[in-house]
């Protein structure tokens, strides 16, 4: 049997429960507007700290999401920026190659250089064109800057080129001024990594000033005449008073070249016109830029004209529709007055 305190305890609980329940029922059956106003006032007073907490939490969550987004955008921008210089360089090289191929009068095959991660890469290059494209051994390999080397062997779809850095490379050459001729070979120091050429067999009586461009002479039946080989940078040695040897700065770098042209025409043709001097190249580039700008402005003008035509064509039906609308809607007598005149004149 329950004691008196237990009974009062139970009664008190029941009263509290029924009171709460009754208040809940009142809240439930009260008009929605009353409930909302009570909720509003509670949010503004008693539960304001809870709302404040939730607002802070929401701010924290959104700022975290925004931080993640911004970090992601920054990472992608950094990634893009990393690749941009190399893309620009490749683009520039391809442009140069394209302009060289336009200037070349003899036939050629374009090929990619498949660089290998070996120490000897640069002496021989694997090219992505082979006998099926018409490439054959002893075909000269050129880049926009000048001579790269010569094809050593060919497979069906690939070929191996010997570059000027190879110890066995030789090319008959002469200065652009025509006063000295000789043979260009890799420098002895090139094998230790310096990467220079020697202009050998220059007669002692002929002196070549620094900065003189050296071109292939076309003798020997391998390289056509006029391909830039290098630029004289200084005298290396004089041998027994009858020969001078000059150091050449190579025109093209096989280590960094990505695309080349393989000349498949007989070497008798002169390709000097395909390698104009720097000033000529600059002028050509400016000219092409001007042409491109002119073409752009013409295209823009035609686009503007087309859009203007479209606008006027779109405006015409609107005008007729507006006329019809004004005719349909009752308007002031002053505006309606000309209508019979128009109809009459139409009749």
């Amino acid at each position, binding site marked *: 049997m329950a004691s008196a305190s237990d009974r009062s305890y139970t009664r008190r609980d*029941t009263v*509290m*429960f029924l009171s*709460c*329940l009754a208040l*809940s029922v009142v*809240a439930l059956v009260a008009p929605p507007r009353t409930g909302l106003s009570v*909720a509003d006032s509670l949010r503004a007073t008693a539960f304001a700290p809870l709302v404040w907490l939730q607002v*802070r939490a929401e701010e924290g969550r959104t700022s975290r999401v925004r931080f993640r987004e911004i970090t992601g955008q920054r990472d992608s921008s950094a990634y893009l920026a990393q690749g941009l210089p190399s893309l620009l360089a490749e683009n520039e090289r391809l442009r140069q190659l394209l302009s060289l191929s336009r200037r070349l009068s003899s036939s050629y095959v374009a090929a990619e250089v498949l660089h290998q991660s070996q120490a000897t890469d640069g002496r021989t290059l694997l090219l992505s064109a082979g006998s099926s494209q018409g490439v054959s051994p002893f075909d000269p390999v050129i880049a926009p800057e000048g001579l790269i080397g010569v094809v050593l062997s060919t497979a069906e779809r690939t070929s191996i080129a010997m570059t000027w850095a190879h110890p066995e490379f030789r090319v008959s050459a002469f200065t652009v001024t025509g006063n000295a001729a000789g043979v260009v070979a890799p420098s002895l120091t090139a094998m230790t990594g310096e990467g220079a050429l020697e202009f050998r067999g220059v007669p002692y009586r002929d002196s070549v000033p620094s900065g003189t461009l050296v071109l292939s002479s076309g003798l020997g039946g391998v390289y056509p005449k006029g391909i830039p080989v290098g630029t004289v940078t200084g005298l290396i040695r004089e041998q027994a008073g009858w020969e001078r040897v000059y150091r050449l700065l190579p025109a093209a770098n096989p280590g960094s070249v990505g695309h080349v042209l393989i000349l498949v025409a007989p070497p008798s043709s002169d390709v000097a016109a395909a390698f104009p001097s720097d000033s000529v190249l600059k002028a050509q580039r400016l000219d092409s830029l001007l042409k491109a700008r002119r073409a752009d402005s013409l295209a823009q003008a035609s686009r503007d004209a087309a859009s203007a035509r479209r606008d006027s064509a779109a405006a015409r039906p609107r005008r007729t529709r507006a006329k019809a609308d004004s005719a349909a809607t009752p308007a002031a007598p002053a505006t309606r007055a000309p209508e019979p005149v128009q109809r009459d004149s139409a009749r």
Partner: protein
Amino acid sequence: MMPSRANRVQVVVVLLVMVVLQFYIRPRLWGPRVSPDFLFLGLMLFALRSSPGVAALAGFVIGLASDALTPAHFGAGMMAHTVVGYVSSWSRAVFFADNILVNAAFVGVGLWVRDLLMLLLSGAGDRPLFTELTIYSPLEALATAAFALLVLLAFRQWFSIRLDA
């Protein structure tokens, strides 16, 4: 048995932590629909250790907060929480002893019943009622029960008292 003042303070601290978790941490958790309901857990922890009348009053206050902050149908939360608080406290005294797993399971069942009452009282349609009661409410109940288990394990000493006085 009269609980000491220290025990009351400890329970109040835990309940305040639950309030902070509910309003500051819960919005940052994964899906808010299936995250633990810390406020309800606080109510259950309190109800299981207090008299039914006090538990009903606590449920009423928490329901009032729920209705004020998410006024779907004013009064539904109050009634649901009042009933669940009262029944939890009463049934705990009648049916089962102190067992952490049973307490945690009781929290989960209580949450599902609370959702059922709230949905019925707020006049939810058949389809939302079915979806809530079969998918979201059980998931939320599971998450809340799991968290209740952690809380009871962590604060076992603090919750081994009754606040009947």
